[in-house]
């Protein structure tokens, strides 16, 4: 209100003056007076226009107030002018400080954007590296994001026009996507499983999909479950074979005890024989449980290794001694061709002996009646000993050879022939290679037999022995 009145005043007065000019000319006022009047009018008019224009652009209450303030200062024209100049300076200052604020804000924004870009790059790198395949699709099913694992999965189905077409070649995935789309976010994750040949191998996959918050699309994650499934199957087989292994001696003990209780033994001599068998079976049970515990301890890294200076042939003989009766019972000839030389070893005699026993037991187990098992030892150059265990039994099929030292692995053909835990060879491998830094190799032909060759470094720690000590790993 005030502004309008003052604007009218500010414009009206000079206009009037200008309007009086022709009258002035008519009344022959001097040219100088006319020019001065025009100049004055011009400056007042300019000032007023400037005040209006600036006031309109600086749309702040403060500026408007000042303008009002200014307009109400109906003092001398000079005061009015300096007021305008002051106000212009204030406006410029304010604009400058706002520009400085804006610059600071922009700098802040750029810094934040930089941080976010770094963060984004980190996230993208992390997602790219994940073992699981990650797919992000929009609600129309268009692929927005994928990582390396996802692309590898898609490539496994073969080439196609585009990624989406590849994705569709794995039917479980579009189906999962549709499932997720149908439901809303509160329904949670949708799951699926499928199999796919990757290279030559059939592999098992698990997939899960979930709606993104804000209805931005769907995230799918695909995990290769093949190893887990395999481990689970092997473990289940292990549990089954362990319980079978334990049941066998238990069955003998149960049967004999009952016979004794029922007085079925023919005489005291037979009674004693049965007691002896029971005792033997309990020993066998104990051994079996210890084998399992040993391996469990190895797995958890708790096994105590006791290294000392031992003689290798002594260790081998100990194992042979245990197997002799078992071989005899099965009418298998056990041939010992141990070296005449003193073979010094710095190692754990008990564990080494146990490992050799496992190998000899296997040889006897998988050789039919009338067959032969041979154990040899010799010095190979003066640094290493070689131990060879050879049988002419069932042999191991070629496809099983790479796996025989795997924990719980049992050659499928053997399952019906004989029982076993699948732990024996895993234990042997650990003792020979990890504990004694040796090597173990297997040669086998089905129905012809198997040869196991062990190489281990010789040497005692004690300086008295003439053989140079070999640097073996120190006691755990």
């Amino acid at each position, binding site marked *: 209100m005030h502004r309008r009145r003052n604007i009218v005043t500010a414009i009206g007065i000079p206009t009037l003056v200008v309007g009086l000019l022709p009258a002035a000319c008519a009344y022959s006022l001097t040219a100088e007076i006319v020019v001065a009047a025009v100049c004055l009018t011009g400056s007042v008019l300019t000032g007023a226009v400037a005040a209006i224009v600036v006031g309109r652009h600086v749309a702040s209450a403060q500026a408007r107030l000042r303008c009002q303030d200014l307009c109400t200062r109906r003092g001398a024209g000079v005061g009015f002018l300096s007021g305008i100049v002051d106000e212009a300076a204030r406006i410029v200052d304010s604009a400058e400080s706002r520009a400085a604020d804006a610059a600071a804000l922009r700098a802040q924004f750029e810094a934040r954007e930089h941080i976010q870009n770094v963060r984004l790059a980190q996230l993208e790198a992390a997602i790219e590296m994940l073992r699981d395949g990650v797919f992000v699709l929009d609600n129309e099913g268009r692929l927005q994001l994928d990582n390396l694992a996802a692309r590898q999965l898609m490539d496994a189905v073969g080439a196609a026009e585009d990624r989406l077409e590849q994705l569709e070649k794995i039917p479980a995935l579009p189906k999962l996507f549709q499932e997720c789309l149908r439901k809303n976010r509160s329904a949670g994750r949708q799951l699926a499983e499928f199999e796919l040949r990757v290279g030559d191998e059939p592999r098992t996959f698990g997939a899960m999909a979930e709606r993104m918050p804000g209805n931005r699309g769907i995230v799918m994650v695909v995990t290769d479950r093949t190893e887990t499934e395999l481990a689970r199957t092997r473990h289940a087989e292990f549990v*089954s074979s362990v*319980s*079978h292994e334990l*049941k*066998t001696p*238990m*069955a*003998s*003990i*149960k*049967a*004999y005890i*009952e*016979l004794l209780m*029922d007085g*079925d*033994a023919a005489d005291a001599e037979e009674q004693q024989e049965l007691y002896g*068998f029971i005792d033997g*079976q309990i020993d066998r049970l104990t051994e079996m449980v210890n084998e399992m515990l040993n391996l469990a301890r190895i797995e958890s890294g708790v096994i105590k290794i006791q290294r000392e200076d031992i003689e290798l042939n002594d260790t081998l003989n100990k194992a042979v001694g245990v197997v002799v009766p078992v071989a005899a*019972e099965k009418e298998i000839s056990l041939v010992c061709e141990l070296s005449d030389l003193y073979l010094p070893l710095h190692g754990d005699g008990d564990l080494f002996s146990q490992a050799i026993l496992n190998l000899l037991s296997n040889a006897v187990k998988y050789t*039919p009646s009338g067959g032969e098992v041979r154990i040899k030892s010799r010095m190979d150059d003066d640094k290493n000993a070689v131990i060879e265990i050879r049988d002419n039994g069932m042999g191991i099929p070629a496809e099983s050879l790479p796996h025989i030292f795997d924990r719980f692995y049992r050659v499928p053909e053997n*399952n*019906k*022939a*004989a*029982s076993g835990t699948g732990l024996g060879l895993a234990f042997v491998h650990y003792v020979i290679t990890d504990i004694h830094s040796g090597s173990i190799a297997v040669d086998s032909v089905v129905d012809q037999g198997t040869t196991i060759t062990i190489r281990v470094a010789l040497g005692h720690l004690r300086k008295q022995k003439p053989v140079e000590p070999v640097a073996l790993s120190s006691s755990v």
Partner: protein
Amino acid sequence: MNHRIIVCDDDLHITRAVSMKLRRAGFDVEVCRDGRYGLEASERKRPDLVITDYQMPRLDGFGLIAGLRELPGLDEVPVILLTAKGYELDHEQIKAEFRVTEVLVKPFSPRELLSLVNSILAIEAPVGA
């Protein structure tokens, strides 16, 4: 005449214990250490009953039973299957498919085995058994 029973198991302690129990009860027992020997023994002289383990080398329990069922005059021979595999095997399915009279899970009781043998061969339980 005594009933003839063939006992097959690669576990010599089991065959020893079972044969002791059955011989004491008056049966004529032949022991075999695998399914192949068991089949040969059955062909040589027809048994009245076969007691066999499941897991054996060369020819397992199922193989032996299948072989028996193909031999003339032997397809009706009652069979008792011994096995350490308890819940892993479907006993009812085995009994139906192989015409096995009973499945005994190891460890088993020789007394129970004898009682089963007697009932299969429809023999009155002798006093004291």
